[in-house]
């Protein structure tokens, strides 16, 4: 039985059509693409003022994204989506609230009108547990009129119309998700996940720099920014020279080869996972699959990554062609929006 939500009295009647949203809920970033043309992205951080003083000072009950990160010392600070799913530890209850607030914020930023219904498709990591999916769904239902989940790599591929014989690689912050598409809904055996992703590059880069220049002082946050600016895996990459304080005095360091090595560290596990997914596929179509590898997610912005991946695929797998998603940040959200559009109206109605 489906119960239709009734608009409470006094609230504007939602009789002016539907706003469709595609939402990509990620460890490091949550993004939305919306049918009214809005696209927004916010770092997946949520913070609540620690006490009355902090609240007075910040003049807000809740902060999001980079603003929350910046003021985290006066906040109860949450990164509610570790590994892309709502965390379920001792803080489960509050994490869930933070996740719900984050979803509410991203939906607000997509500027729905008061008189339209909001239908959303949310891309969740391929391997999210049932319990986590439930949590995401619950959080979302507080803010939209109808909602569906779908697997994240699937939505990336759907957005690009690459539904058959394609290997999608989504390089996020916490995880790299690989998913094999072959014209049907991907199943468990079509998906592999490893933790060699953006955060791993940051850690590796920190380690390498610390080993070579023990006197340099830096934080992981600084390293992440450097990586996002200079990431490159090419043999002939432009030199990377950055300033780190040494005993308080800014000092230039050449970290070119460290940046390259750190960025390259995620490639071999990726090739290995590719080999597994290709090797267990119908032999007749293995070559085709090999030649349709699609790179997406923030980590795919590493320069030269497609070329390097192709090179290593040649070495290990005897060949391969790699393409990049056009908009790494919005690939998931765009795909989810396309699914929302293509979903028949009666399905949406049913889930209201």
């Amino acid at each position, binding site marked *: 039985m489906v119960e239709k939500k009734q608009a409470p009295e006094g609230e504007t009647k939602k009789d*002016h*059509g*539907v*706003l*469709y949203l595609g939402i990509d809920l990620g460890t490091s970033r949550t993004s939305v693409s*919306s*049918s*009214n*043309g809005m696209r927004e992205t916010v770092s997946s951080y949520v913070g609540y003022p620690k006490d009355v003083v902090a609240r007075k000072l910040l003049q807000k009950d809740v902060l999001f994204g980079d603003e929350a990160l910046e003021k985290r010392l006066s906040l109860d600070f949450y990164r509610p989506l570790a590994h892309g799913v709502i965390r379920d530890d001792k803080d489960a209850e509050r994490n869930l609230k933070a996740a719900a607030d984050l979803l509410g914020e991203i939906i607000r930023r997509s500027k729905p*009108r008061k*008189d*339209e219904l909001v239908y959303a498709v949310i891309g969740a990591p391929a391997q999210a547990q*049932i319990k986590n*999916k*439930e949590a995401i*769904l*619950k959080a979302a*239902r507080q803010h939209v009129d109808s909602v*569906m*989940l*779908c697997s994240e790599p699937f939505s990336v591929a*759907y957005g690009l*119309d690459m*539904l058959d014989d394609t290997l999608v690689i989504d390089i996020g912050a916490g995880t790299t998700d690989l998913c094999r598409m072959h*014209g*049907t*809904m991907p199943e468990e055996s079509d998906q592999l996940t490893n933790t060699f992703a953006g955060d791993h590059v940051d850690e590796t880069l920190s380690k390498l720099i610390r080993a070579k220049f023990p006197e340099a002082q830096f934080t992981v946050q600084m390293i992440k920014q450097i990586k996002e600016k200079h990431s490159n895996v*090419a043999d*002939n*990459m*432009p030199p990377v020279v950055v300033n780190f304080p040494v005993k308080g005095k800014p000092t230039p360091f050449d970290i070119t080869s460290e940046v390259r090595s750190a960025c390259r560290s995620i490639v071999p596990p990726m090739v290995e996972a590719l080999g597994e997914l290709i090797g267990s596929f119908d032999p007749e179509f293995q070559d085709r699959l090999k030649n349709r590898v699609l790179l997406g997610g923030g980590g795919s912005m590493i*320069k*030269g990554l*497609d070329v390097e991946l192709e090179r290593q695929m040649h070495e290990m797998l005897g060949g391969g*062609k790699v*393409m*990049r998603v*056009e*908009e790494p940040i919005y690939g998931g959200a765009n795909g989810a929006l*396309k*699914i929302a*559009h*293509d*979903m*028949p109206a009666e*399905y949406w109605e*049913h*889930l209201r």
Partner: protein
Amino acid sequence: MSSFSSAQFRGSQKDLFTPAQIQHLMRVEFDRAQRYRYGLVLLVVGIDRLEQLQDLYGSELRDQVHGALVGLLKSATRASDALGCLLDDRILVLVPHTPPEGAAVMAKRVLDGMRALTFDCDGRSTRVTVSIGGAHNARKGDFAFDTLLEVGTAGLKVARDGGGNRYVHSELYEFFEKKRARERADQEAAAPAAVRAPMPIAGAPAAAAIGDGVPHILGEKIRDMFGLSENDSALLAKIEQEVVTSALREMKLELEKVLVESKSEHQRQIETLERRITKLSDSLGMTEAELQRALTQKTVDPGVASIYKTVQGLSSNDVQVQLKKALMSKIFEANVELRKKIDTGPQSTS
């Protein structure tokens, strides 16, 4: 709903892209197709006896015919990523992800559609036909976009010469490719030799010039390595010069490598952005049309945002419509299951 933007066919100031820009996008698409080895076809379409028609009935008829033809082309190609533009009196339509047979099918649709139309002029109704030349990239080896264009145009010419109202696909790839190669060779032969000499590195003095006054350190190093005495100065100078020349050569190679790499990286980025722009302008054009429609039907406005579902939603023309429908119902079913679990679960909230 067909989906390449009418904006790309109009010739007015308001166009998002000039024909030259669209041709550039076509080149980009063509290069991509070559790189990733997917098929694409080019149709070169011309209205038969356009000049006479114009003389007889004026430019109004031309615009009418043109409008109808663009409409037919849009519905015949059906692909969301087709590119179209006007080049002189020809219309070019590039349709990616399409095998050679696709060109013939599309051309037939346009020809049939055109034959079925009549145009009103001064109270008289007239029929107008078109000719179409086709070209594709389904052949081995490298070739250039210009060759594709020339093959298509040659097809159009043959179709017209044969009386019009037909589709011709010539197979003159090789011919035009060779012709282009010859032209290139001629040009190069005509160019002054200096242009073809390797580029000197900016700021680097010529090797010989350095050779005269190489710093002592280099001289001493070489003397050490080769066990030369003070008297071997001629030999020393020679070796020095060779060292400097080869160092410069190395530097130049290195520099070129870096340049090539960063250029190809930039090229990729430019292509990506260009494709993105094309797509956005597509939906912009469609949205414009849809808004226009909504305006004329104000009384039944279902809300502005809903328009996008019509514009971008699943079209029955989509080649994968059945598959997509099946996938949608799979997603839906999975969500119904999930919802059941929540609603019957222990900590149910709704």
